[in-house]
């Protein structure tokens, strides 16, 4: 009797979560995969699952999903493969423009532009995905692997991204974000949080990129003023892949051998990470050092906290203008942590890590790095009040539990 009651309650709860008549639309690889899969993504109704069979879907064009509350689920990141090698049109492999979408358990290979983009797609979950340019780092690879933009509530969990000619995982102009348990390798930027508010980036591995994890804010965009970003418990090692981004691109300015780079954000915490084997530096905090004329934009980084990280080797081959000279002056090596000095002492990052840490003293945001006059950064023992952890809606966490 008791059990039966539990069963009824359980069924009732399921009914609450799952809309009536939710169905699974199975799509197999093979002839006509492009049209069949795209038609399934259009025919899907809220609550439905579009299930990708095992095998390789050879696609000629980008795919898109514009229906709320749809799950696209494969058999596994290496088993169900959306292959865009023959792509002839569209700017990305898969584009999502609807809310409450779950993407899980499939792979995306060799898209001509971005891998998976979601725009204005709130409460999106990226889970157990693989986005890869299989030839490794190449300038001709697509820009971003996983690319949510203009979205609220973003979860990226247990994905692997390799070979992006810009950022492997890129979250832009969004808010309330978690990127965790993921691997970014052989991209220009491993993970990048840009012009975004409230993000936790934790328990990831960023390795063999040009730069491991970037937190940027750029001018002339609808959402600016990036803030409240926590980078913790990540392994950020050996990011020595020579920068293969085309010039002009903001990440083309990331020096090869960068661990973490914070540009023009406020309230960023970098703590409990393992960093090492990054030839330029493990952690750098810099201003946006390009001319701009956006009165609403603040190019200075401020309120950055660097706390309790473990540092391995860094700074033996600094790849930016003036870097070699500073390294020589310091006895051959660039510091594990540096701040460019933008905005003067009140903007200095608060550092507890007991490794070499420098200010370059470039207070003027437009000063030439070659004119740096480095001074050590003070070590702090008092940690400022911590940022709160990011909390996503329970419905999103339930997907990956």
């Amino acid at each position: 009797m008791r059990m039966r009651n539990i069963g009824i309650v359980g069924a009732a709860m399921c009914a609450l979560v799952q809309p009536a008549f939710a169905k699974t639309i199975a799509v197999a690889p093979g002839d006509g995969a492009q049209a069949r899969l795209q038609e399934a993504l259009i025919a899907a109704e809220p609550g439905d699952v579009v299930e990708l069979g095992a095998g390789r879907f050879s696609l000629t064009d980008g795919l898109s999903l514009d229906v709320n509350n749809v799950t696209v689920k494969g058999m596994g990141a290496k088993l169900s493969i959306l292959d865009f090698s023959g792509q002839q049109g569209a700017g990305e492999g898969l584009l999502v423009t609807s809310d409450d979408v779950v993407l899980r358990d499939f792979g995306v290979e060799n898209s001509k532009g971005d891998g998976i983009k979601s725009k204005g797609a709130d409460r999106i979950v990226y889970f157990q995905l693989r986005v890869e340019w299989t030839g490794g780092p190449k300038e001709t690879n697509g820009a971003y692997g996983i690319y949510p933009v203009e979205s609220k509530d973003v979860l990226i969990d247990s994905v692997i991204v390799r070979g992006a000619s810009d950022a492997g995982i890129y979250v832009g102009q969004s808010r309330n974000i978690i990127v965790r348990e993921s691997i970014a390798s052989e991209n220009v930027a491993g993970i990048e949080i840009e012009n975004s508010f409230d993000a936790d980036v934790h328990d990831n591995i960023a390795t063999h990129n040009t730069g491991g994890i970037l937190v940027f804010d750029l001018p002339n965009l609808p959402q600016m003023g990036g803030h409240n970003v926590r980078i913790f418990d990540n392994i950020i090692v050996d990011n020595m892949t020579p920068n293969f981004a085309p010039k002009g691109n903001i990440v083309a300015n990331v020096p090869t051998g960068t661990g973490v780079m914070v540009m023009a954000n406020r309230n960023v915490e970098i703590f409990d990470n393992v960093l090492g084997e990054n030839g330029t530096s493990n952690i750098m905090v810099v201003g946006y050092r390009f001319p701009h004329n956006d009165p609403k934009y603040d190019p200075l980084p401020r309120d950055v906290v660097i706390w309790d990280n473990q540092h391995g080797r860094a700074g033996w081959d600094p790849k930016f203008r003036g870097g070699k000279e500073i390294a020589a002056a310091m006895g051959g090596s660039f510091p594990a942590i540096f701040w460019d000095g933008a905005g003067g002492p009140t903007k200095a990052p608060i550092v507890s890590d007991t490794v070499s840490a420098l200010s370059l003293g470039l207070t003027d945001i437009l000063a030439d790095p070659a004119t740096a006059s480095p001074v050590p950064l003070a070590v702090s023992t008092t940690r400022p009040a911590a940022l709160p952890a990011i909390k996503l809606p329970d419905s999103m966490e339930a997907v990956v539990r």
Partner: protein
Amino acid sequence: MMRWLLPLLACFATAVATSANDPEIAENMIAGEQNPPTLSEFGFFKGGAAHPSSQMIPYTLRTPLFSDYAEKQRFIFIPRDGVVTADAQGKLVFPVGTALVKSFGYQDVETGNLNILETRLLLHRANGWVALPYVWRADGSDADLRVGGTRIPVSFDLHGAKTSISYAVPNKNQCKQCHSSAEQITPIGPIWQNMEFPRSGDAARFTRQIPTLASFAKWARWDDRDPHNLQDRAHIYLKVNCGHCHAPKGAASNSGLFLDGSATDAASAGIGKRPVAAGRASGDLDFIIEAGHPERSILISRMKSTDPGIAMPELGRALHHAEGVKVLEDWIAAMPPTVH
């Protein structure tokens, strides 16, 4: 006897004329919930694409969107008793039951006949606009709904040379990608200042219904040769070809590059603006538009590329529009260089 027979005969004649030359357009199909699998169910065409119903108003655009040099035929169907209005920008506002019908095709290399490949519909239903692509059968007898889009190999004469491309019919979502504002589907083309009506009487019908239309100045034609309106032509070309996505509520809102005429400063119009999410499409260049230097402007290099990861616009671009790009190059070259 003749007194009552004559009107009867006249009635009969009208009925015959309607059924022979004027297929009745199925208003219930336009406004209904279902998407018919074949185009013929709407009654927009009699037999084939070459025979549009005279119940539709044909129109052309002074500056059209480039789509791989396809020729386009555009029609509006307005339901009986439907009232058309216009917004403050001259965009026509259509009643529920309206259909915008647009066919795409190429001249046959051998016969010179226009071979229509697809017809796209925008249907105004009670809960908003719906975009549907129909692909004509090889025999031209009817067109089938293809919500997933398709590709069709096409050969045509371009500047005296036979050119072959894989022509892309957009899928239903891609229709929305361009035709969306704040995530709602919306028509793009029917803006009064850009419209011309080949059939006599049609333009007057609109201005009679909407007197304010008469106050709008017509837009420049992008291919006008008058050197004095180069800036106007470039602005209109960008507005028509880029502004549907590059708008504050459009699909490219996140770029911060606004080409719909809404930009209030140089950077948001692209001048001296650095790329954001262009990736490799930035092509070793620093600015979207570098005044005085079309060869150093990302906007130009992307409009010249046919690589899907680089090309702009993203759709209908197996080829690049050499003549349109030339207008933009001339315009950028004529800009006084500025310090960025």
